[in-house]
């Protein structure tokens, strides 16, 4: 655990970067610092490894006052990842990763063996070991940065906007990788970002800073999105926080209806009857394996010869689907919004149609979560 007690940082020029901060960062979890530029996130982070000394207050790591520890020695037990990766241009990838083991006096073979192990862990190719940093892409460099921070297996990991300089696709994969690593390693991670989506995705708890270096709110992502303490926090996390919050509710809460799903061998006349009885303007046509084929409207059915099978009619593309068991309400809403029929297709893990969620059903599910506490503190994540 890392604790800040009454921490204030005033730089020599008079800037108050952090103002009377009290915060507890639980061990083995990810705590994210967010806030607008200049609100003291980096300063707070750097006080943990003594790259910045607080003006007043006390910081402890694992119960020990960090002022009692030699800064260089302390830092070797705290991993640090920054935006530009900060790799050493004159060292090969494997030696970059082995930096802290070298400093700790491990022998070269042992340090390099450990570095190669980490390359694999963060998804780098073994043949990249002997390259120099400038020969790697930005995303790969960032992986090296993460591997280097983890090399001596420190209990604490500080990450200052580590993924903000890479493109969105690479960023997403690096975030997923970090989630996977953290599930395995259980480090005490302090992660700084500007990006509230990233904070919600990665954080077990989120600390929102306000300008002037004050803590505005420290909460789980779910509670932060549900109950921002004031208009500053609400503005910072964005006015679409309601939609974001749906990520915390599983799509399992929905009951997809099956009476509007027809096989593609059903005749148009029979399908039209079904549609009239359900009161729905659209039916979902599925194939013999219950894989989705497309939407058919009641108008199309009415105009068609009652004897033809629906599979041979003009079908409207079914668009996105969501996986009922693993996706969140947000994914279901997304699928409905993007569907030409305004309805979401729910499938099982094998892609077979479970049923259709109409807007009215989705609407009442969303309405009911508005009042409720989320059933889970972890965002619902899908593999898709």
């Amino acid at each position, binding site marked *: 655990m890392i604790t800040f007690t009454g921490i204030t940082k005033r730089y020599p020029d008079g800037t108050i970067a952090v103002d009377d901060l009290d915060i507890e960062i639980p061990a083995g979890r990810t705590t994210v610092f967010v806030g607008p530029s200049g609100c003291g996130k980096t300063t707070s982070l750097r006080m943990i490894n003594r790259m910045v000394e607080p003006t007043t207050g006390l910081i402890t790591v694992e119960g020990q006052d960090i002022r009692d520890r030699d800064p*260089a020695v302390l830092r070797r037990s705290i991993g640090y990842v920054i935006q*530009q*990766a900060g790799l*050493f241009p004159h060292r090969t990838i494997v030696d970059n990763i082995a930096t802290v083991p070298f400093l700790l006096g491990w022998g070269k073979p042992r340090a390099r063996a450990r570095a190669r192990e980490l390359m694999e862990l963060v998804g780098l190719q073994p043949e990249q070991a002997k390259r120099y940093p400038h020969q790697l892409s930005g995303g790969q460099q960032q992986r090296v940065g993460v591997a280097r921070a983890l090399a001596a297996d420190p209990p604490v990991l500080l990450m200052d906007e580590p993924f903000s300089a890479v493109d969105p696709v690479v960023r997403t994969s690096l975030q997923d990788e970090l989630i996977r690593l953290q599930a395995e390693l259980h480090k005490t991670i302090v992660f700084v970002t500007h990006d509230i989506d990233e904070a919600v995705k990665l954080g077990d708890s989120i600390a929102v800073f306000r300008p002037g270096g004050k803590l505005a709110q420290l909460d789980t992502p779910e509670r932060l999105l549900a109950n921002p303490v004031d208009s500053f926090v609400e503005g910072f996390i964005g006015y679409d926080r309601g939609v974001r919050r749906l990520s915390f509710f599983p799509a399992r809460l929905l009951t997809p209806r099956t009476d509007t799903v027809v096989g593609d061998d059903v005749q148009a006349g029979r399908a039209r009857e079904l549609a009239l009885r359900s009161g729905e303007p659209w039916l979902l046509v599925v194939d013999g394996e219950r894989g989705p084929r497309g939407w058919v409207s009641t108008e199309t059915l009415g105009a068609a010869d009652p004897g033809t099978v629906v599979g041979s009619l003009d079908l409207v593309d079914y668009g996105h689907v969501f996986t009922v068991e693993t996706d969140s309400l947000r994914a279901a809403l997304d699928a409905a919004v993007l569907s030409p029929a305004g309805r979401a297709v729910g499938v099982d893990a094998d892609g077979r149609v479970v049923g259709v969620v109409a807007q009215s059903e989705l609407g009442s599910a969303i309405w009911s979560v508005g009042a409720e506490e989320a059933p889970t503190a972890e965002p619902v994540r899908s593999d898709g």
Partner: protein
Amino acid sequence: MGDQPLIRWDWIARNWDDPVGTRLLEHIQLALVPILIGLLIAVPLGVVCARWRWLYPSVFTGVNILYAVPSIALFFLLLPYTGFTQWTAIIPLSLYTLAILVPNVVDGLYQVPQHVRQAAIAMGFSPLRRLIQVELPIALPVAIAGLRVAAVATISMVSVASLVGLGGLGQLILTDGFRRQFPTPIIVGIVLSVLLAFLVDGLLVLMQRLLTPWTRGSERAARRTSAARREAGAGTTAPATDTGSRRAEAT
């Protein structure tokens, strides 16, 4: 120079060991010792200037003023103290190398990216270890570029030292050639001096390749090398104006 042929091979053959060989060895010694002394002073001085930046402007001005003093004047100034020993040449030549080496060491250290320095601190390097294992290696390509300029400049400046009778290939040019109106030693002196400069420069390029494998194939290294080559062409005739182009390289 009358009716003599430009090159008399028989003279070269007769004088190959002495004075030609002797003068060449003197020349090498008179050039290498100042370069080594210059390095020994410039590296710590550059490190100090990069660390305490407020010091650098005065140090920079100081080494430039030294560079602007005509070498021949310095030799004569030192003569009463050091006499006709090699130190009379070595001391001024060492001082001249500083004007090239110190700015290059400082620029090399300035080029260490801030995020790399921060990362080194965060990894738990002590300041001295950070300097030796991170900052100086990264400064090396720029420092070696400066070393090449300094080496070539010193080799050609040694000839001037011969004006006051301190030995070196200049002696060959002056006493054996010029005073006796005899062109062969002049040409031999010039050719050997140029060859020596090329050889030393080539060795330094090789050393840079070996010491900085990470710059291979990178664009920045190529630019630095070409800048150094331009510098090397400037030679010794106008030491005072040379500082201008050196400064251009610094930026």
